[in-house]
């Protein structure tokens, strides 16, 4: 029942349709004008001509590298400061420190202003400023009407250079973080994602999540120390885009963000991830109508030349899972696969599905079977071409907005990704064939090594989870 994914059988079908028109009076589609329309795969398009717009790169006197790109369509200014101060740098016993520091940087007062005064002034200007901690970095994002650019940047500079970290606001932000932890089991998908990450990266800092105890262990002195260690201009990059003149903006940035003092310290190195997780089944019991299933294994880091090929394999895998589990069998609304960012540590090749409890075993079996099939059965040329063409054709979406272009350049710089790296990846993708895809799939898709996480209610499952490996019952911790 494997479908053909090329246009060829279709053309034959249409020919037959037209030939046998008289014999098939009920087939009204032959009378529709679309019968003459070109098959999409065979349509020809002029080449896409455009000059890629590059931002201006400028290093401020304090050592902060800034990417600036004018876009004067609307009277808006937006920007992001990316700082290597993500949760990956959390001390294990104070997991949550990076996140709390980010939130308090924004919320705890800045310069001569109290927290309430900062909030009041930013809201008055309708300037949005947020500071958030992610895994690899923290971001200070801002947007405002361009007429308020100078005052907004002045406030952003105070937030970055002179955060107050007021004690009462530390209590507020800590309490919010604790409440978020209390609520973390309300969403089964979040539970599954967290457990999956925890198990795949076990032993590495990224596998750890904040707990009530770890967040309660953080003091104001810890926040100050974390900020001092990571928040400095040479450990950051910045993107600015919108309605400005570049030279004037550089002068304004120098006057404002330039106040953020450089320390000239080398950013700390991340610990490597060099172990293989054991292939086990982790079961989280929740009394739900559906099971959330995640399975997968670590693969390469993004700088490995084969990394983009795994992206292509994952796309093929996802298409097959969607066809089989969703469209043909109606077993899930949400089903797919993906490859997580392999920056610094190996990415994860994963698949997921959310299915009714009594189909849990069947869906795990189907996912594993599809994974096996990609390794054993060469995909058709038509299918390979479509996936490859898609990757190439959508590359233009890297250039859709000034903020996206400036932001991408700033992140690449922060993570030491060479300019032209993406183009090299595309070149690799362009020469893929069904034959070499099969070869890569055999190497990089390893169903026997997958970690499986299931969040759901086992008494309602159709199969015992033990059929898929050693089962570990996960006790959720607060």
């Amino acid at each position: 029942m494997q479908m053909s994914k090329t246009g060829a059988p279709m053309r034959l079908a249409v020919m037959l349709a037209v030939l046998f028109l008289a014999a098939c009076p009920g087939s009204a589609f032959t009378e529709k004008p679309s019968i003459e329309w070109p098959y999409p795969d065979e349509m020809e398009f002029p080449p896409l001509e455009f000059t890629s717009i590059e931002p201006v790169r400028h290093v401020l006197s304090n050592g902060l590298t800034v990417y600036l790109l004018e876009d004067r369509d609307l009277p808006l200014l937006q920007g992001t400061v990316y700082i290597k101060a993500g949760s990956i740098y959390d001390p294990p016993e104070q997991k949550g420190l990076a996140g709390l520091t980010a939130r308090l940087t924004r919320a705890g007062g800045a310069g001569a202003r109290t927290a309430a005064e900062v909030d009041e002034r930013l809201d008055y200007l309708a300037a949005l400023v947020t500071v958030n901690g992610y895994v690899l970095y923290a971001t200070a994002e801002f947007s405002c009407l361009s007429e308020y650019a100078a005052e907004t940047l002045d406030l952003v500079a105070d937030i970055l250079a002179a955060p107050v970290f007021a004690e009462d606001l530390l209590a507020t932000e800590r309490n919010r973080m604790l409440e978020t932890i209390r609520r973390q089991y309300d969403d089964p998908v979040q539970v599954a994602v967290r457990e999956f990450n925890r198990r795949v990266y076990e032993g590495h800092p990224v596998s750890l999540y904040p707990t009530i105890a770890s967040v309660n262990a953080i003091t104001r002195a810890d926040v100050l120390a974390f900020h001092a260690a990571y928040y400095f201009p040479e450990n950051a990059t910045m993107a600015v885009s919108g309605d400005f003149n570049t030279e004037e903006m550089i002068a304004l940035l120098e006057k404002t963000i330039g106040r953020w003092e450089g320390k000239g310290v080398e950013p700390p190195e991340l610990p490597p991830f060099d172990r293989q997780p054991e292939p086990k089944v982790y079961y989280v019991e929740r009394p739900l109508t559906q099971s959330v299933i995640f399975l997968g294994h670590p693969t390469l880091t993004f700088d490995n030349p084969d990394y983009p090929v795994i992206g292509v394999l994952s796309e093929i895998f996802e298409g097959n899972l969607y066809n089989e589990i969703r469209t043909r069998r109606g077993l899930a609304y949400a089903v797919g696969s993906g490859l997580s960012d392999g920056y610094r540590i190996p990415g994860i090749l994963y698949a997921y599905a959310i299915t009714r409890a009594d189909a849990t075993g069947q869906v795990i079996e189907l996912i594993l079977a599809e994974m096996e099939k990609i390794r054993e059965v060469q995909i058709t040329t038509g299918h390979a071409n479509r996936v490859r063409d898609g990757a190439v054709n959508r590359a233009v979406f890297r250039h859709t907005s000034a903020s996206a272009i400036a932001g991408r350049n700033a992140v690449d710089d922060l993570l030491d990704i060479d300019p032209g790296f993406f183009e090299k990846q595309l070149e690799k993708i362009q020469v893929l064939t069904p034959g070499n895809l099969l070869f890569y799939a055999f190497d990089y898709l390893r169903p026997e090594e997958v970690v499986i996480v299931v969040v759901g209610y086992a008494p309602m499952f159709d199969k015992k989870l033990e059929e898929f490996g050693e089962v570990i019952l996960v006790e959720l911790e607060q």
Partner: protein
Amino acid sequence: MLKKILFLIPALLLASLPVAGSGLAEQAYRFELDNGLRVLMVQRPWAPVIHCHLMFDVGGIDEPPGLGGIAHMVEHMAFKGTSILGSLNPFREHELLDRVEEAADAYFDALQSGAPQEEIDRRHAEFLRAREEAQGVAQPNILDQLMGSQGAVGYNAYTSYDHTSYVVSLPANRLEAWIRVQADVLLDAVFRFFYEEVDVVKEERRQRNEDQPVGYLRERFLAAAFQKHPYGRPLIGSMEEIANYRTRTAWEFWETHYHPNRAVLVMVGDIDLERAKDLLERYFGVLEPRERPPGWIPEEPEQEGERRVWVEYNAEPQLMIGWHQPAYPDRDIYVLEVIKDLLVSGRSSRLYKRLVVEEQTALSVSGATEVPGARYPSLFVFYAQPRYPHTTEELEAAIYEEIERLQNELVSADELVKIHNRARASFFSVLASNSGLAQNMAYYELFRGGWENLLAYPGLIQSVTAEEIREAARKYLRPERRTVAILAPGPEKAAE
């Protein structure tokens, strides 16, 4: 095929509207195909991409009784392909799909007539066999694959109570691919994999409305707030309604509503106007218009007393409060928008500052107007999550106190300037993305008297006075007009 020359009318006249700097009016073009499809194009040559948003004026509220969620179901079916796109043998497939329907009739008849279990099982097996046979000549997800290979991004659709939208972003040179595919879908959709998709939608319902506390609460909240109007029905349908969907009733809904004269197509990006117009005439031009059938949507009677819903659920507590509010073109919709911003938009807004920052009784508080739709009178809503050990009752009391303040005291000029600035900034932010602009233009063109009225939005917000705010708070935010829904854990969770 239509050959009539349609003139592109630059909307220059609109340049004088009070939105200096948007430049939108100068870049927008409007024309209409003979079949009534309204087309808006905005040239933004910044990047060689085009975003398309095709919005129909049909949604969940247009569903007949008993067919809750059918608008959403047919939206899913519009991705199953056409006679030509998605079949290995269209003739054979049409026959096989007829057989699936016969087998479905037999099976549903047996179920409904209370036939012996053995008989039901036999017919079910035949039904499954017929489906499997039809699958044998079908190509699943062919449209996704065809559009994906063109480099399409975000090829998707969504259904709301008010409307249904089909969206995509494309490399600018490949616009024709989507126009060709989408026109074919409207001309000649084939509802293959229908009963399989019924199961998919059941999973979607479980995922969104049953295993998600907020979805579970929202369904019960809306049902309590609207006792007659379809805004009170679950948009996705009840499990029972979904389980009883049949291809022919879904098809009938599709055939009744999804016609070019019921839609607006907005394209934003690096567009060659003449070329795009030619393509639309060639492909969309073949579609036939069909009049909107007379429909009757029951009015929601005036609420005469507070309604309260308690939902026991194994999750941390949350609170929804909604007051009935009027619909466009009532000016008070803008006044209520301002009230919402005063109370919950930004860290210094009254409720956020009080509940989240100062008293720390809430993890979050947010608000929205025109819930769950905007074509008919709707709800003005707050949503909040208490911070342990604080309770929903404490949050409720604080929210009512702040509303009382609005009913008794005039808002200061400074606070209003804050709202005015916010209105301008958020307006431009929406326009900044091609997709945000397209969605808003389509909505205004369909439901708000023309896309150009979008440009008046910041001015309308800025014209709201302190007196109007006090009056609207008094008029709408009264206890007898509100519905309160609280989700709280059962005894087992609470004991943890």
